[in-house]
Structures are given as C-alpha cells and as structure tokens.
C-alpha cells in the first residue's frame, strides 16, 4: 500500500512539473547552415546559470596533475576559462590532453592540484553534480553499434534525465544533420557519421561546459565545416568549450585562446598573443635590385630594432610596431631611390608557435 501511495505521488509530481524547458530562440545571422537547422542548445536555465556565475570562471585548474605510478601524464597545469569561451588544447601525442579532459570530466581523479568545473570544485563527492553540467565527447565515439542512432541517444537522454527526451534527440540529430539516419544501426555508419552521433550525444544534456576530444578527427571537409559551425554556434549560446585538437588551423579559427601542453602547460593565450610572445615582430622588404648600402637605409631608423638580409633583394627588419615602422621604412627606401616591390609584416602561424615550443622541449630533452 505504501508503495502504491508513493507511486501515485510520484506520478502526480511528474505531471505537475513542466514537461520541458523551452529553448531560447536566438536568430543566427552569419551561419546559414546552422540557421537552416534552427538549432539552439541554450535554455533559460543555462542562461540564468551563466549569468549567476558570470564572475567565476567556467573552468579553472590550479597546479593540476595526474600520475599513473611513476609515469607523469600531465603536471602543474593551471588556467582559467570564462563562460562561453572556447579554449583550444593542443599538444603532441602523449602530451596528456586526453588525460586532462578525463580528469576535468571527473572520469579519473587528479593526483595533485585543484580545479573547478562549471563552478563546482573538482572533488570525489562532486562528481555527479559536475557531470550533470558538463558533457564529454571522447576521442573514440564509443557508440553501441548494435543499437540504432536513436536508441543510443535515448539511452543517454535518460542517463542525463533530460526533460522531454524525444524533442532533445530530434534537435540533437538535426544539429548534426543526422535526422534522416535516426533508425540506422550505429554499426552501419561510417566513422565520420559515428563521430557526428557522438557529438549529438554530447549535446543532449544542454551542457554548460563541453569537452570535445578531437571532434573532427576522421571527418571529411564538409562534415568538419559543419562541426566548426556547430562549435561556433554553441559558443554564441554561452557554452564553454574545451577543445583538444591536432588541427592547428581549427584551433586558430575556432578558439578564443589556445593552450599548448607537453606534459606541462607550455603556454596559454590568444593565438596572436602567443605569436608576439614567441617571435619578434618583423617587416619583410623586397626590392627590385639589391640595395647598395642597406645599413645606411635601415640602421638609422628609430622604428627598426635590427635587420638582416634574407636573400639578394629580401630584407627582414625587426620592429616593435610594424605599422609605425612601415611608414618610416617606406620613406627611407624612397629617399634612397630604391625600387620597392613590397613591404609587409611577416605573419607567424599558430603552427610556428606550436612547433617552436615543441621543438624547444625536444631539444631540452636531448640535452
């Protein structure tokens, strides 16, 4: 009888609570593909949560580390990520990126340091509460291959206790362009499509913080572009994204900041900041014929810190302010009667930054 009464109360409670949280409609302007799908994964609850926590970082780590016995997976990792920020987490194979994601995702326990995830301290007791607010898309999709796409998502919607799971699943599938494959067995899908199902699964819980471990690995260019658009859209919706990737152009395009990990955190910052921090800013001057006395032209300019000749007609000038220096250099070259073909700032890519840091580590190890 007691069980019957409890059951009835439970049924009544379920009826009186609102069936689903309506999604906030945000009209996209510059992402036609996403706009066409009409997807938004931001609910009033999430907006309110983000607003309430606006001051505190969405994700932070202080001296975080993980060892497996004697082997250090990653060590002394410290950073803060704001709400709605996309952090690119780069590093060579075995640098500890996936272990960092697993640690912040409460799948494994850190051996040193501390962290807060979605505003909650990373402790053993807070695991469930943290996992309610985050979503992890692991490197390997980990789908149940004998189950259909919809059955896979249904299982996870229930694990997250998502309200109105049918709607969530439909929206998640539309967001990754898989609405027409809902009844296909996951085992029959290509690697790229499985990756998209895994991404749909990560969206089901309406996460505040989303961990994406190489989300575009194995995807074709069109699917990659779709994922990039989706990430950009999620970011606009206020979702904080922790993106590990090997694709540097992806990081440069999508991320507000990037961190480079090679067991320890080598650097963190905006891509242009990192370039400036690591490489001197330079102007490249190309002339039609070699300058007879380049020293006379460049050495006297206050905006130029130094110069070197790269080729017969190519000169690289170290400058602190390229815009200011460009005017001064142009004037000096014209006064010297030089035939100038081009003057431009040398751009270092994120790849240059990455390779420079990783090579430094390699050389340090060899020494």
């Amino acid at each position, binding site marked *: 009888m007691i069980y019957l009464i409890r059951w009835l109360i439970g049924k009544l409670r379920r009826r009186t609570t609102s069936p689903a949280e309506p999604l906030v409609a945000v009209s996209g302007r510059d992402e036609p593909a996403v706009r066409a799908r009409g997807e938004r994964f931001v609910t009033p609850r999430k907006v309110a949560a983000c607003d309430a926590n606006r001051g505190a970082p969405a994700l932070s780590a202080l001296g975080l580390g993980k060892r*497996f*016995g004697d082997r250090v997976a990653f060590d002394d990792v410290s950073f803060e990520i704001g709400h709605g920020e996309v952090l690119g987490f780069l590093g060579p194979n075995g640098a500890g990126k996936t*272990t960092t994601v*697993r640690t912040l*995702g409460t*799948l*494994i*326990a850190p051996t040193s340091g501390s962290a807060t995830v979605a505003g909650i301290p990373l402790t053993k007791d807070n695991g*469930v*509460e943290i*996992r*309610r607010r985050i*979503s*992890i898309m*692991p490197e*390997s999709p*980990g*789908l*149940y*291959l*004998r*189950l259909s796409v919809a*059955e896979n998502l*249904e*299982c*996870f919607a*229930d*694990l*997250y*206790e998502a309200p109105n799971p049918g709607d969530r699943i439909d929206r998640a599938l539309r967001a990754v362009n898989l609405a027409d494959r809902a009844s296909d067995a996951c085992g029959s899908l290509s690697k790229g499509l499985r990756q998209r199902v*895994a991404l749909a*699964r990560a969206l089901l*819980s309406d996460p505040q913080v989303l961990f994406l471990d190489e989300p575009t690995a194995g995807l074709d260019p069109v699917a990659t572009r779709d994922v990039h658009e989706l990430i950009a859209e999620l970011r606009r919706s206020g979702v904080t994204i922790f993106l590990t990737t090997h694709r540097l152009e992806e990081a440069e395009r999508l991320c507000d900041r990037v961190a480079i990990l090679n067991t320890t955190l080598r650097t963190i910052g905006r891509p242009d900041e990192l370039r400036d921090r690591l490489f001197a800013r330079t102007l490249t001057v190309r002339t039609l014929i070699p300058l007879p006395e380049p020293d006379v032209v460049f050495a006297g300019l206050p905006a130029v810190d130094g110069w070197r000749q790269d080729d017969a007609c190519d000169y690289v000038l170290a400058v602190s302010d390229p815009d200011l220096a460009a005017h001064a250099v142009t004037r000096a070259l014209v006064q010297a009667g030089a035939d100038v073909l081009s003057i431009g700032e040398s751009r270092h890519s994120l790849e240059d930054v990455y390779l420079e840091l990783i090579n430094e580590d390699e050389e340090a190890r060899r020494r």
Partner: protein
Amino acid sequence: MSVSRRRVRAIFRKELREYRRNRTIVTGMAILPLLFLVQPLVAVLNLGASASGGLAHEHELLYLLAIPALVSATLAAYSVVGERQQGTLEPVPGTPIRREEFLLGKALASFVPSVAISYAVYAFFLALVEIFAQPGIAPALLRVSDLLAQLVFTPLLAGWSIWVGIAISTRAGEVRVAQQLGVLASLPSVVVTSLIAFNVIRPSLIVALGGAAVLLVLNRLGWRITSAMFDRERLITGTR
C-alpha cells in the same frame, strides 16, 4: 544515496536491446538451459511407473537450479568487460550515473532473462513430464515443497551469480576469461543444489530458510562489494 530509476532503466533497456541482437549471447542463453533440460528429461521419461515410489524421497528437479546460476553468470560476466572491449565504457561514466546505478542496471538486465528462462524451462519440463512420463511419475515429482524451492531459489541464486559475474567482469581483461571464471565461481552453488537434489544433503525447512537468508544477505552485500570494486579509472585507462 538515492538511486535514479530512470538511469537504472536506461542501462537495463540498453543491455536487453544489445543482448537481443548479440548472437553469441542469445546462443549461450539457449544452449545452457537445453543441456540442463535434456539430461533429467531423458532420465525421467525413461522411468517405469514402478519407480514413482522411489521418487517421492528425491528432489531431482532441484538440479534445474543450476540454470539460473549458470545463465546469469555468463551474462553478467560479459557485462562490463564486454563494454570495455567494445570501447563503449567511457561515455557512460561521463554522465551523472552513479556506479551503483550502472551496476544495478547491468545486474537487472542479466537477472530478468536468466530468471525468465529458468522458470520457462522448469514449466516446460513439468509440462513434458505431465504429458509424456509414465503414470505416477508426474505426481511423484511435482511436490509443492520443490516447486516453492524452485520459485524462491531461482532468483536468489541468479542474483548471487550475477554479482559474482559482474565482480569478475570489472576485473577481467577479456570476455571469454570473464565468462569462464564466472561459471567457475557459480559452481559452488550448483554443487550445493546438486547435493540436495541427490539427497546427499537432506533438505528441510530449516536448510531452505537458512540457505535463502544467506543468499539474501550475499545478494545485498554483492551489490555493495561489486560497486566498491568498480574502478572507473582503471576501466577507462586500463592502468593501476
């Protein structure tokens, strides 16, 4: 600790769907009960009507209690290590599910088919005996006490085998090894029921109640101990 029924149900449903579509598991679930059905059936159907007097003091049908013990051990032993081998173990612990809920879902998914198969095989056995056995054999075999023992001990033995099987599955590195160890670990309970069936251990109400109480306690403990043994980190990273 509160257990979310929805999460437990999600794992339970997912497992049943997977079992249904996994030919190896379906075959395994069919073969074991058949083996345990055929031998006693042949023996009983070959008995003459005069043998019914001797049967009144035996409890041969308790031999069928091996079915819930072995079928559930095979299923449970697959549950965790099977997922690990398929690479599906990482996403689930990334959700808010507690390990107790995860394991309860897994255990129920082994429990329901094992108990259903055991009862079905038992009912099938009784029906065949009733129809095809010599006169007097069926009434001699079908005793209320044996029927009650079958009803009560089937779920209890299945439960115990499941927790042992899952515990092995959380530690094993390969499905086949886990299943062999699971069956091996279920053998003591099979031996005890066989000894009772063959009258080596004299069955009585006290033995039955004592056995049921012990199994109840073991089942309750099994959930807790297996949950404690479920090391999320080791299963995901394969270390420690």
